[in-house]
C-alpha cells in the first residue's frame, strides 16, 4: 500500500520536474538567461529572476497532485522555483519568490467552500522559508567569494535536500500546533519522500543545465572577445614590442575584456598599463611584482585569485586592484619568455573564470603577433637594403659616363660643362637628401631631370625627351627611385641601342583615386629590360607599400616602342 502510493506520487512529480527542466532549457535560450548567470547581479537581473522563479512556483502548484489522505494537501514541485530563485538571486529575491509562491498556494487552494486550513498556511510559510534559506546560501558563498560553488552538484543536492527536510518540519510543526499531529504525520508519510526526491533531483538537474549553458555561453563570448581583439589589433605591427604599440594593444584588450586593468611587460619593464591604478602604475618602470617575476622566470601562468592569494600593489597601498592573472608571452621557437600580459580585477570584484581562459588565448595571440611583427620588420629592412643596393648600382656607371661626357666637352664648351657639373651634383645631392623610403613625385621628377640633362649631353641628337606631368600630381608620394631607374633603363636598353634618334616620353594618366605614370621609348627592346630585373624590384616595392593593385606593367611592340606603366594610388586621398 505504502509503496503503491509512493510510486503514484513520485511518477507525476518526476513528470513535473521534467516539465520544469524543459522550461528551464527554453529559458537558457532567451536573452533573459543572461540575467540568471551574471556574476554580479544588478537589480534588473534580480527582478527577472524573481519573475521567472515565481512563475516556476506557481506552475508547480498548478501541476500539483492532491494527497490521497488529506484533501487540502498536495504533493508538488513548488520548492524547485523557490530554491532556484534563492540560490540564483540571493536572500531578498529568494524571500519574495517564496512569499509569492506561498501566497499563491494559499489562495489558489482555498475558497469559500474550502476554508484555509493549517496545511495551507504551513505550505505558504514553508515556501517563503525555502526561498529565504536558499538565498542565504547564495549570500554565504558570495561573502566567501566562491559564487562558483553554488553551481557545484554536491552543494546544490545537499542544500535542496536540506530545504526539503525543513519543509517537512514546518508542516509537522504546524500540524502539532493545529492539534492534528497524527494527520500531519500521515500526510508526510505519504508525500515527503517522493517530494524530497523529485525536488532534489529537479533542482540539481536545472542547476546543472544552467551551468553547462553558462559555460558554453562563456566560451562563445570568450571567442568573440578574442576575435574582436584580433580584429582591432590587426593593423598594429608589433615587431618592436615597444611602449607605443603595447599601449594601444593593452587599451584594446582592456576595452574588450572589461577587466579592471591590463598591463604588458617585457622581461625587464612595464611597457603599458591601462585601467584602474594607471596613476601609479607607470609605463617604463621596472617590474616589481613578484608574481610577474615568477611568471617570467618559471615560464608559467600565475594567478592570484584575490582570495587564497591576494595581489597587493607594491607602489600604492590604497591601490584597488586585488587579483591578477599573469601570463608569459612566449617565443615558442626559441622557448624564451618575451614578456608578460597581466589582467587585473579590483578587490571587490571576482576574477571571472572566462577571463582566465581568455587571458591565455590573448597571450598566445600576442606572442604570435610579436613574432609576426618581427618578421615583418625584417622584411621591411630587407626592402630598405634593396634601395641602398639600387642606389649603389646606379651611381658608378652613371658617374663614369657623366664625367667622361664632361671631360669630352670641357675644352669646347666650358660653360656647358659647368652646367652639367651642376646637374651632376644636384643629382647626387638628391640621393643624399633622400632619407626615407618615399619622396614626392616632384622630387623624383627633379631627380630624373638632372639625370636626363647629363644623358642628353652624352647622346645629343640621339636622345629627345618629353615630360608631360601636370603639377597637380607633384605632391603625390612615391617610393624613392621609382622613376629614375626606369628612365635609365629606357636609355640603357632602349635609346642607346638605336641607330636613329631615340625618344623618351614621360607622361601621366589620372583617375579619381589613382594615376599611372608612363615611360615610353621608341626602341621597342622589351626583352633587355625584363632581363635587367630593375622593373621587378620597383614593382615589388610598390606592391609592398601600396598593395597588389598597384605596380608596374610593361608593354612592347618590338622595334616600335616600349611602354612602362607605373600604377600608383593618389596618396593625398588615401590619407583622407
Amino acid at each position, binding site marked *: 500500500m505504502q509503496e503503491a502510493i509512493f510510486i503514484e506520487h513520485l511518477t507525476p512529480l518526476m513528470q513535473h520536474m521534467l516539465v520544469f527542466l524543459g522550461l528551464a532549457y527554453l529559458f537558457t535560450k532567451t536573452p533573459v538567461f543572461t540575467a540568471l548567470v551574471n556574476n554580479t547581479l544588478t537589480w534588473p537581473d534580480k527582478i527577472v529572476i524573481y519573475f521567472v522563479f515565481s512563475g516556476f512556483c506557481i506552475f508547480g502548484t498548478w501541476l500539483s497532485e492532491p494527497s490521497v489522505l488529506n484533501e487540502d494537501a498536495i504533493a508538488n514541485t513548488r520548492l524547485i522555483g523557490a530554491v532556484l530563485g534563492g540560490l540564483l538571486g540571493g536572500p531578498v529575491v529568494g524571500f519574495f519568490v517564496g512569499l509569492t509562491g506561498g501566497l499563491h498556494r494559499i489562495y489558489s487552494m482555498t475558497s469559500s467552500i474550502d476554508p484555509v486550513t493549517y496545511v495551507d498556511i504551513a505550505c505558504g510559510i514553508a515556501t517563503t522559508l525555502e526561498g529565504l534559506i536558499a538565498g542565504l546560501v547564495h549570500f554565504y558563498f558570495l561573502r566567501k567569494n566562491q559564487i562558483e560553488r553554488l553551481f557545484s552538484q554536491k552543494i546544490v543536492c545537499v542544500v535542496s535536500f536540506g530545504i526539503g527536510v525543513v519543509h517537512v518540519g514546518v508542516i509537522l510543526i504546524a500540524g502539532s500546533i493545529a492539534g492534528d499531529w497524527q494527520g500531519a504525520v500521515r500526510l508526510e508519510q505519504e508525500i515527503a519522500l517522493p517530494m524530497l526526491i523529485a525536488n532534489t533531483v529537479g533542482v540539481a538537474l536545472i542547476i546543472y543545465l544552467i551551468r553547462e549553458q553558462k559555460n558554453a555561453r562563456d566560451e562563445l563570448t570568450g571567442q568573440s572577445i578574442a576575435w574582436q581583439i584580433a580584429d582591432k589589433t590587426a593593423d598594429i605591427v608589433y615587431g618592436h614590442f615597444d611602449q607605443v604599440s603595447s599601449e594601444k594593444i593593452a587599451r584594446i584588450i582592456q576595452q574588450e575584456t572589461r577587466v579592471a586593468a591590463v598591463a604588458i611587460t617585457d622581461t625587464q619593464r612595464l611597457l603599458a598599463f591601462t585601467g584602474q591604478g594607471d596613476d601609479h602604475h607607470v609605463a617604463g618602470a621596472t617590474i616589481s611584482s613578484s608574481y610577474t617575476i615568477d611568471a617570467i622566470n618559471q615560464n608559467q601562468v600565475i594567478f592570484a585569485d584575490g582570495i587564497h592569494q591576494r595581489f597587493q600593489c607594491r607602489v600604492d597601498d590604497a591601490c584597488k586592484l586585488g587579483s591578477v592573472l599573469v601570463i608569459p608571452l612566449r617565443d615558442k621557437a626559441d622557448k624564451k619568455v618575451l614578456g608578460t600580459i597581466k589582467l587585473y580585477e579590483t578587490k571587490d570584484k571576482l576574477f571571472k573564470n572566462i577571463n582566465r581562459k581568455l587571458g591565455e588565448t590573448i597571450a598566445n595571440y600576442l606572442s604570435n603577433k610579436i613574432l609576426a611583427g618581427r618578421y615583418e620588420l625584417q622584411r621591411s629592412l630587407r626592402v630598405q637594403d634593396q634601395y641602398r643596393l639600387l642606389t649603389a648600382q646606379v651611381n658608378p656607371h652613371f658617374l*663614369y*659616363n657623366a*664625367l*667622361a*661626357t664632361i*671631360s*669630352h*666637352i670641357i*675644352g*669646347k664648351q666650358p660653360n656647358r660643362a659647368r652646367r652639367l657639373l651642376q646637374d651632376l651634383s644636384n643629382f647626387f645631392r638628391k640621393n643624399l637628401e633622400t632619407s626615407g623610403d618615399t619622396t614626392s613625385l616632384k622630387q623624383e621628377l627633379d631627380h630624373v631631370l638632372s639625370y636626363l640633362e647629363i644623358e642628353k*649631353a*652624352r*647622346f*645629343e*641628337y*640621339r636622345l629627345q625627351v618629353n615630360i608631360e606631368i601636370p603639377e597637380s600630381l607633384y605632391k603625390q608620394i612615391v617610393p624613392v627611385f621609382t622613376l629614375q631607374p626606369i628612365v635609365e633603363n629606357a636609355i640603357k636598353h632602349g635609346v*642607346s*641601342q*638605336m*641607330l*636613329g634618334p631615340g625618344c623618351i616620353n614621360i607622361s601621366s594618366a589620372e583617375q579619381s583615386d589613382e594615376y599611372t605614370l608612363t615611360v615610353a621609348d621608341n626602341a621597342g627592346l622589351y626583352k633587355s629590360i625584363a632581363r635587367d630585373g630593375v622593373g621587378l624590384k620597383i614593382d615589388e616595392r610598390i606592391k609592398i607599400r601600396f598593395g597588389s593593385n598597384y605596380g608596374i606593367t610593361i608593354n612592347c611592340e618590338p622595334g616600335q616602342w616600349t611602354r612602362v606603366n607605373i600604377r600608383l594610388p593618389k596618396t593625398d586621398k588615401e590619407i583622407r
Partner: protein
Amino acid sequence: MIKTIVVDDEPHAREDLTSRIRQDSEFNVIGECANAFEAIRDINCKEPDVVFLDINMPKITGIEMLSMLDKDTLPRIVFVTAHGEYAIEAFEKNAIDFLLKPVSDQRLNITMQRLKENHQPQAMVSEAFSANLKFVPCYRGSQYYLINVKEIVHAYSSPTTGVHLLTKESTQAYHTNISLKVFEDNSDLIRCHRQHLVNPEAIKFIEKLDNGLGRIFLHEDYTIPVSRNYMDSFPAIS
C-alpha cells in the same frame, strides 16, 4: 699621312678623340662614324689605314663588325672601350691595341707612336674575332635593317650600286656594305658566279645550258646565273 676613321656612338667622345688624334700631323682623320652601319660603309669605300673602334655600339658591336669586313682589305684596328671585360678577352688573345676609356693623353700617345711605326693590318686581329656572320646590316630606302643571314637566299653585286640581298620573304632587295667575299668566307652562301652568291637551301633546281653555263631556279620566275667556273660546284645536280 695615316688615313684614320674614328667610330664611336657618343658624339662628344668621338669628337674628343678625333680632335686629339688630329693634333698629330701625321694622322689624317678622314671619317667619323656613329655606328657599325656607317663604319662598314666608310671602311669599304674610304679604305683607311687605321680605325679607332668603339666596341659598345647599338645593334652591332665593334667586335661583331670585324666579321663583316673583308679580311684582305682590313685596316689596322685600335679598340676603344669603357668596358674592361673586353680588354681581358683581347689581351688573352694577345692581339691588339686596346684603349680603355677615358683615354689618357699618355696612353693615346703610345698607341699613336706604335701606329706610326707600323700601321699594317694585323691578320691575327681578324682571326681573333672572326666569327660566322649572324646578322647583316642593310639599308632599304632610308631605313636600317638587321637581317638574319639564314634568311638570305641571294646576294649579288653590281659595279655601280654595290651589294644587294634578297630574302625569303621580301620581293625587294636590300642594300648592304658588306662585300660578297665576306659572305663567302663567313656564311653558308655559295658563290655561283663572280657577282652572285646563293643559299643552297633555297635552290629549287638548276638548269644546265649549252655553253657550259647554268641557271639556278629559286622558284618559277626567279633565276640566278651560274658561270662556267662555278658549274663544278654543283656536280650532283648537273
